[in-house]
């Protein structure tokens, strides 16, 4: 997803002979219509459904859904899990990016591949591996239960599964950017007498702040919205081990559609805020790039 940050070039508007590089007008309209209809049916309509279903019985029923203690407990648990998983992966992402982007070493591609692995693994498998490790019949299960510790069907399991699925997000945003930026700035700072920590804080960090923010936004969205992995390790204990997506599932399976879509609407709002922030960060970072290089803004070329 790293390549989503990009500067759009408007070179198609006017600079070239349009007739040679565009389709006939009717084909263009057909393409445009296909795009709008396809995206409308496949992307916008499901989003609209979430809100119309949540408000089907009026605003009163909608807001009453949040009075349910189980719903509140689910919201609290989701916030707690994200508050643990995101900082952990933030620390990991920054340290991994420093080692991978600023140094050459053997085995680098192995480490980079390991970071990407959670993206390629089915969410169900991400949860299953921890059941195999910590579950009652798992490798460490007997030892854990002998010491009165519970990981699976409890909050620690949910946190670990969430950490697993969100490992790549921040590291993946930072590594390509920091590789591109090289080490000249840091070398200059060190030569001028800055300490290693000062160099990192005053030189490296400001250089990557947008990518870092972008990574945190993506990581947080996934941490709060993860369903498959968390579902396998949670045990669905109402009020105790239900995160918001799991609460949505339970309510939906109980045919309590208004309440299910009410909780879902909060998650959908989170997704919309994530997309809006993402677009904003892309624009700000593109503006920062063009300002830094002293070139006119891309839109004006």
């Amino acid at each position, binding site marked *: 997803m790293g390549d989503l940050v*990009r500067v759009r070039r*408007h070179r*198609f508007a006017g600079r070239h002979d349009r*007739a*040679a*590089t*565009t389709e006939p007008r009717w084909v*263009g309209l057909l393409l445009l219509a296909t795009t709008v209809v*396809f*995206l409308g049916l*496949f*992307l916008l*309509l*499901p989003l609209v*459904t979430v809100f119309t279903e949540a408000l089907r019985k009026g605003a009163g029923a909608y807001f009453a859904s949040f009075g349910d203690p189980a719903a509140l407990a689910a919201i609290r648990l989701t916030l707690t899990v994200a508050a643990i998983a995101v900082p952990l992966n933030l620390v*990991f992402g920054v*340290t*991994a990016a*420093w*080692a*991978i982007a600023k*140094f050459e*070493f*053997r*085995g680098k591609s192995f*480490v980079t591949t390991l970071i990407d692995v*959670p993206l*390629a*693994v*089915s*969410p*169900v*498998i991400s949860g*299953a591996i921890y*059941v195999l*490790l910590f*579950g009652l*019949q*798992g490798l460490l299960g007997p030892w854990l239960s002998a010491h009165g510790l519970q990981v699976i069907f409890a909050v620690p399991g949910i946190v*670990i599964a969430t*950490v697993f699925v969100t490992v790549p997000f921040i590291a993946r945003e930072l590594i390509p950017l920091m590789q591109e930026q090289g080490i000249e700035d840091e070398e200059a700072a060190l030569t001028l007498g800055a300490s*290693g920590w000062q160099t990192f804080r005053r030189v490296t960090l400001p250089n990557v702040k947008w990518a870092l923010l972008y990574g945190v936004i993506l990581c947080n969205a996934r941490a*709060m*919205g993860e*369903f*498959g992995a968390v*579902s*396998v390790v949670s045990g669905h204990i109402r009020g105790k081990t239900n995160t918001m*997506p799991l609460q*949505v599932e339970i309510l*939906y399976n109980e045919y309590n*559609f208004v309440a*299910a*879509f009410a909780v*879902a609407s909060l*998650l*959908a709002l989170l*997704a919309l805020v994530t*997309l809006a922030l*993402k677009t904003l960060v892309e624009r700000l970072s593109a503006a920062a790039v063009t300002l830094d290089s002293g070139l006119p803004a891309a839109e004006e070329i």
Partner: protein
Amino acid sequence: MAFLARRHSVLPGFGPTLGFSFLYLSLVVLIPLSLLFFRSADLGWGGFWNVITSPRVVAACRLSFGAAFAGAAVNAVCGLVVAWTLVRYRFPGQRLLDAVIDLPFALPTAVSGIALTTLYAPTGWLGRPLDAIGLKGAFSPLGVTIALTFIGLPFVVRTLQPALEDLDLDQEEAAAVLGASRWRTLRRIVLPAITPALLTGFALAFARGLGEYGSVVFISGNMPMRTEIAPLLIVAKLEQYDYAGAAAIAVLLLVASFLLLLTINLLQRWSGRRHMRGA
């Protein structure tokens, strides 16, 4: 960690940062994941083979692979149209549509799942018209394909967009000047140039579809032998404390997605070479 020896650099902090990263990855990713292979090895080859060739697993895998393939194929066609329109045309609302492409990434899968199910249920906005022409949307293999199309769309569009933006317009102009029709130019100049990106997007969407769970379990209806997907069988086996059986299906899916990842890497190397040659 002898194999992680570094070359000389003046920057500090190599040892601690790499050490911490490697430890973290080992604890969170490497060790738990390798356990999966050990656990399925408990079964032996015969037991493993018995699990993955049992009729229910075969039916689930056929549905998972088939629906993921069909979804990726729909996305390859419609995603190409969408990416082309977004890159080559300017129209009102374009920025909004472009931002919306990422919705399936951003929307939690459980939310997409219940929304799609409501939409395609026999009484839903889209389920009713489908019903009228004799098609069952939700609770059928078609429903699974619809959910996987939704999930896979951003992979195709976001892979194609940079490739389309990098196209050399001069080649298209040259083709037009030499008398090629627009259709011929698209087929002979544009399509070959973007084929690696198109295949990469297809493979990414396919891989994601294979493992997808949240958006599918609601719309599929989970009928054994008919609309049960492979990831759901892993969950079912875990709930019956059949850990080895769950591990066997998981290994099957993992191997499939790693093979796809390998293909994607080869495709990207191919497109890199193409790019160099073109430059």
